[in-house]
């Protein structure tokens, strides 16, 4: 039934418990999250939010590193985490991590990662690595650039592109990129961001792009989900959501991005959140404590997702 869908995340919740016995506390890191990616229409789907919003947990759930407490994640018709289609899944879904210097072991040569991956996933003839060469070409590197090099001998931008190339060896349909450009220097950052765009257009790879940087999200993605304390507060086409955010939290987030322009400086002050854990356990809307438009209902009852103007907004204002 889901054959048209690449990935279906359906009502997924992940609860982490902390402590033991009497001091046990629960945190809903991901709370009733749902979205789907189409199989034949590659897209870049952004999960945006602050640290502690649960966006990396969503990535771990999709990769099968964590098991959802409730809800289901189905990839190409097979549930993630099950044995059925597992090998196919590992080949098809590849992660890219934040800091390329931590992705690679500093004592191992970069090429060994490529060669190991190729050996594991294709028919192998000794001494020849055609898939490695193809993957490197896709990201704009050459085999001689990584040959016999240790991670410390490469620049951050080069190494992150190598990390993307490694993920491309298995010819995946879905890349999960967790903050892939936040550790890269400004003058090299756009080369990696543009690479994602090209992979989507030319290689038909869908990408789940996880970031806190709304400016790059606006630049590359098709759809965006704004996360707050484990929940999607606003989901829709990136142009709509970021040009004219509806949820008060999205509005705050957008207004807090400093513009690279000295003419537009902030005039009014903002309130910062109280302790993170306090917002997680808050009854009603998680944003009610900071929201300038909050009314009594917000503190009592959790809002539903309301469809407004082609997007979903989790706010009582749009009921």
């Amino acid at each position, binding site marked *: 039934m889901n054959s048209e869908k690449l990935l279906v995340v359906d009502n997924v919740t992940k609860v982490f418990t902390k402590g033991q016995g009497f001091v046990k506390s629960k945190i809903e890191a991901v709370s009733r999250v749902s979205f789907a990616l189409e199989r034949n229409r590659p897209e870049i789907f952004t999960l945006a939010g602050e640290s502690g919003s649960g966006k990396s947990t969503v990535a771990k759930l999709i990769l099968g590193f964590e098991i959802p407490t409730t809800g289901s994640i189905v990839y190409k018709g097979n549930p993630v985490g099950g044995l059925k289609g597992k090998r196919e899944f590992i080949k098809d879904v590849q992660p890219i991590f934040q800091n390329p210097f931590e992705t690679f072991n500093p004592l191992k040569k970069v090429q060994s990662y490529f060669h190991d991956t190729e050996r594991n996933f294709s028919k192998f003839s000794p001494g020849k690595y055609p898939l490695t060469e193809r993957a490197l070409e896709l990201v704009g590197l050459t085999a001689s650039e990584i040959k016999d090099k240790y991670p410390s001998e490469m620049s951050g931008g080069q190494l992150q592109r190598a990390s993307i190339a490694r993920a491309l060896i298995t010819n995946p349909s879905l890349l999960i990129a967790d903050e892939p450009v936040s550790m890269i*220097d400004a003058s090299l950052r756009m080369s990696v961001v543009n690479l994602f765009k090209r992979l989507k257009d030319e290689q038909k790879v869908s990408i789940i792009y996880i970031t806190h940087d709304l*400016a790059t999200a606006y630049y590359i993605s098709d759809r965006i989900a704004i996360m707050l304390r484990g929940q999607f507060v606003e989901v829709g086409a990136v142009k709509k959501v970021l*040009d004219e955010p509806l949820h008060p939290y999205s509005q705050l987030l957008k207004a807090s991005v400093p513009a690279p322009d000295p003419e537009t400086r902030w005039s009014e002050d903002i309130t910062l959140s109280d302790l993170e854990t306090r917002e997680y356990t808050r009854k009603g809307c998680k944003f009610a404590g900071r929201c300038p438009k909050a009314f009594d209902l917000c503190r009592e009852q959790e809002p539903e997702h309301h469809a407004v103007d082609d997007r979903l907004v989790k706010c009582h204002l749009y009921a």
Partner: protein
Amino acid sequence: MAILEVDNLKAYYVTQTFGRSSTVRAVDGVSFHVNKNEIYGIAGESGCGKSTLLKAISGLVKPPLQILGGEIRYNFADQQLNILDLKDEKQRRRLRGARISLIPQGSMSVLNPVRRIKKSFEDVIYAHLDVSEGEFEELVKNHLEALGLDWTVMHTYPHQLSGGMRQRVTIALSTILRPEIIFADEPTTALDVVVQRGVIQLIKKIKEEQQNTLILVTHDMSVHATLCDRLAVMYAGEIVEEGDVKSLFGSPKHPYTSMLLSSLPKIGDKSARVSAPGAPPSLANPPAGCRFHPRCPYAVDRCRQETPALRQLNETHRVACFLQEAGSMELQGRAANEQ
């Protein structure tokens, strides 16, 4: 009036490995001045020498870092001094914290994880002031109140605070003695946008209240745009451009600056952006001539042989590029056409 003048500063890392010495020229011939009461920004990528520059001017020079030339002069209201003349660590310590103060990078690791916040405050205050416990409490209470923080944070351990809270506590700690100059090294990096905005507000508030001078080092051009009065852009150990933010962001003169600015994506603008080809050079072996020439689209032969000096364009703007010199009008025209 200039409160800090740096003149042709050279700070190198000199290391000896198996009898072979290698030199990393992290800060190479940097000159600038900072006026009293302004916010001066230093921008650049990682490895361009901006943190080394900050270490050198705050007197935190320890081997392998060595100062091989130049002068760093402070003009305080009652005293003028060259920090390189202070040979005694004791004298430098008296200066740091009280007259100049550093908001360090990475608030996660600067507070001692096994001591309560109050202990850190005690360390700083008792090292400089001879106060009783009551006076100490009053001083800290007033300061925290002014910054919108609660006295209860004094009894917490760092891990109990969120990242933004820890950064605010660190800022409070660095500014409690009302220093005349504050150095901030990447104060908002690794913070969320909303918290970042809160911290920027806080820094602004302190600066206005205490009437001091702030030197802000970060790679984030957007933060510079929102905070600074004047900005210096560093590349490979040198200042390549300096000017007041409006003219620097409005019409950048150095190809590196304009590339850096044009590569920044903006909300509301989906037009294609490209980043510079190549990567920043290694400072152990920088290219000859202009250090940017291997990545510069307008490089000519002269750029490969001679090093351009930082020249005054007008009252507020300095740039180190042959493109901006007289007689290069033709090149400038080409640059404009390509843009």
